[in-house]
């Protein structure tokens, strides 16, 4: 409990910002979902023949996992990409189904005699809708909005994967650092937010269905609308203000410790050397998300690895020569308006890892040695490694690897702990991971030279460098200044000792790049 409180205290400004982003995202998307969903529900209830497909589509949308939905939307112009807009769009899609459904249920649940009485009294369809049908369906509609909002709070945490901000940022940060305190720092406020929204809308629902005179029902609806409007206005206002102070340069990173450190490193370097305001969009999903974000201009620079760019982004055959790979990648990036800056100085290749105790007991030195043990072993890999052309399929072919069961998919960072804990016997980690030393893991030698070089290189938008030449100068100064040992030490400080990333980077820059 104490570490959590002190984390909140030390990060209070950030906490408030993330919380506000979260509320804004959920509030706006739920409002839009209601504004679209209620009319759609009315339409669907009136004309079942056209309504049925609407509900079917909304149903299908609901079954798509949210992370997959963010992925689908990455290449879509206007609504897609990374950031709060794409996240809002996904939240709206998810919110539609419950709202459409409860609107239909509310309208269909009205006693036909009541509707007939209205028609027979000479109500126009519009009068019937506003004076009879909607008031009677309102508690049901509010119940749908309540579901949409509460689900939205949960989905919005996942939206941090595409850089939408919000409390999910702490959850992802905590996952990548394997730090429960940081996970809870985001998860607890999100849960409280969900409970508060649920309670407030439950109260509204109750008030609307309770016996109240028309006037006081109207007052309830009006006061609820006013509260929503004020909250939205305040949040939009603060959103606009923060948007205006958006940094000139946006730095991105993937979602594991080393990448977050490198993102912070680029950010501090640019701030220190150029005085430009820098916005950090760290902890974006995987390679693909960062690449799309850079291509779309949502971020200006992030650190990629040459081998990853070669195989995963550009789909080129594997090549073992570091200089050839660097040149090829630089050429390919240049064609799409992106500039590869000088390599930072270390090669973060995949490290095939086993427990130190196994390596010593069985005398394992190389991947070839391990391949002989593999039929008795289980393996665990991050999903990227399983899918990438330079990942598991090629590795298995190169070494004739065959495990007892198909490898399990797990979060890259968690796989180190799974190996140390004995749940799996072999993993593919990062060569620079701080946990290798911390958990007594042993790195097997790639004696058949399967893996291409993975030199860490900053990749920036050419347009940004043209506009701010001082940024190029600053980033070029980083060239060759980070050794594998430096990186491993920084990773270790963050992962094993839970030190603050900004502080780690500050100290590194002070000591090495004065």
């Amino acid at each position, binding site marked *: 409990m104490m570490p959590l409180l002190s984390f909140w205290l030390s990060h209070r400004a950030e906490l408030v910002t993330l919380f506000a982003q979260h509320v804004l995202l959920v509030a706006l998307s739920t409002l839009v979902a209601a504004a679209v969903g209620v009319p759609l529900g009315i339409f669907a209830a009136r004309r079942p023949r056209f309504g049925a497909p609407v509900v079917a589509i909304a149903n299908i949308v609901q079954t798509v996992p949210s992370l997959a939905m963010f992925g689908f939307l990455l290449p879509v112009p206007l609504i897609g990409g990374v950031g709060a807009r794409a996240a809002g769009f996904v939240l709206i899609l998810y919110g539609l189904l419950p709202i459409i459904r409860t609107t239909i249920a509310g309208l269909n649940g009205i*006693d036909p*005699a*009541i509707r*007939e*009485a*209205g*028609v*027979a*009294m*000479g*109500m*126009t369809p519009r*009068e019937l809708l506003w*004076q*009879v049908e909607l*008031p*009677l369906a309102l508690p049901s509609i509010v119940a749908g909005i309540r579901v949409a909002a509460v689900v939205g709070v949960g989905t919005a945490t996942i939206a941090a994967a595409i850089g939408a901000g919000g409390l999910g940022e702490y959850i992802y940060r905590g996952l990548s650092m394997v730090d429960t305190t940081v996970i809870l720092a985001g998860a607890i406020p999100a849960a409280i937010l969900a409970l508060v929204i649920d309670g407030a809308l439950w109260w509204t629902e109750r008030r609307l269905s309770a*016996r109240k*005179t*028309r006037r006081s*029902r109207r007052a309830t609806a009006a006061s609820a609308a006013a509260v929503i409007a004020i909250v939205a206005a305040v949040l939009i206002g603060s959103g606009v203000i923060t948007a205006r102070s958006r940094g000139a340069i946006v730095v991105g990173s993937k979602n594991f410790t080393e990448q977050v450190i490198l993102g912070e490193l680029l950010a501090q370097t640019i701030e220190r050397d150029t005085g430009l305001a820098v916005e950090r969009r760290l902890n974006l999903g995987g390679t693909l998300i960062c690449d799309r974000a850079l291509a779309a201009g949502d971020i200006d620079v992030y650190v990629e690895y040459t081998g990853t760019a070669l195989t995963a982004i550009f789909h080129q055959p594997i090549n073992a020569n570091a200089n050839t790979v660097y040149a090829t990648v630089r050429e390919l990036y240049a064609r799409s308006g992106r500039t590869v800056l000088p390599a930072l100085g270390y090669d973060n290749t995949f490290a095939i890892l086993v427990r130190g105790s196994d390596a010593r007991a069985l005398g394992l030195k190389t991947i070839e040695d391990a391949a002989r043990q593999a039929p008795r072993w289980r393996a665990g890999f991050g999903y990227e490694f399983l899918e990438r052309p330079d990942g598991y399929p090629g590795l298995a072919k190169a070494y004739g690897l065959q495990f007892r069961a198909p490898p399990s998919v797990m979060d890259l960072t968690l796989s180190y702990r799974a190996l140390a804990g004995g749940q799996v016997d072999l993993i593919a980690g990062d060569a620079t991971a701080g946990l290798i030393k911390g958990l007594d893991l042993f790195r097997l030698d790639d004696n058949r030279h399967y893996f291409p070089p993975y030199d860490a290189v900053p990749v920036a938008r050419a347009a940004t460098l043209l506009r701010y030449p001082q940024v190029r100068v600053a980033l070029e100064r980083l060239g060759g200044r980070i050794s594998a040992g430096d990186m491993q030490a920084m990773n270790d400080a963050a992962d094993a000792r839970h030190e603050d990333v900004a502080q780690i980077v500050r100290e590194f820059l002070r000591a090495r790049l004065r």
Partner: protein
Amino acid sequence: MPDAAIEFRAVSFARPGGAAVLDRFDLRVPPGEVLALVGRSGAGKTTLLKLVNRLLLPDAGAVFVEGRDTRDWAPIRLRRRVGYVLQEVGLFPHMTVEDNIGVVPRLEGWPRDRVAARVGELLELIGLEPRDFAARWPDELSGGQRQRVGVARALAVDPPVLLMDEPFGALDPLTRAELHAEFRRIQDRLRKTVIIVTHDMGEAFALGDRLGVIDEGKLAACDRPSAIVGSTHPAVRRLLDAVTRLP
């Protein structure tokens, strides 16, 4: 012949499935008369009422209200000149008694104080003390009270025509007899043109200035109660026998 308030001329109507309900049906109701229409369940009594306020249109023939073909009436205007009381009453559960009765006046754009005055007047007419009942909710009323409010709501803008579909069917016999007397008292004051449909010959005798018997899509008989008692038409006899055979 004086203008009929409601007239059916050779009206035929079939349900969407094809079953004929009314077959060249003729009927004249003069202004200020209460016509009680009797028939078995499914004889087309409700259909007949819906043809009057244009909830339905005839397949052939024509229905005239105040001398004008219902096809030529704007449906909304027509329905606001024709009060309608359903068996299920259909009071709006989200509105108080006061608001239920005031629905049509509000739709007609009456100012608020005129609506309130009219609601008070109607509550007194139907024998419910406004101070006690105006602010009640429909589910706080007995079946008989609800039915009275239904009548008041139908009378709110003083329509010349009133349609009542089995209005007292769901009530216990004592309450029903009470409401029958109440209805006659109100009608003696208001002199509306009323069509009441019912499957109960006893109720028809209690309420109608004239009685009509619907049989196989036609009007088998339509006359003063005293004349109906002596009718020899087999369908009329069957309905009469059902009443007299009661213990």
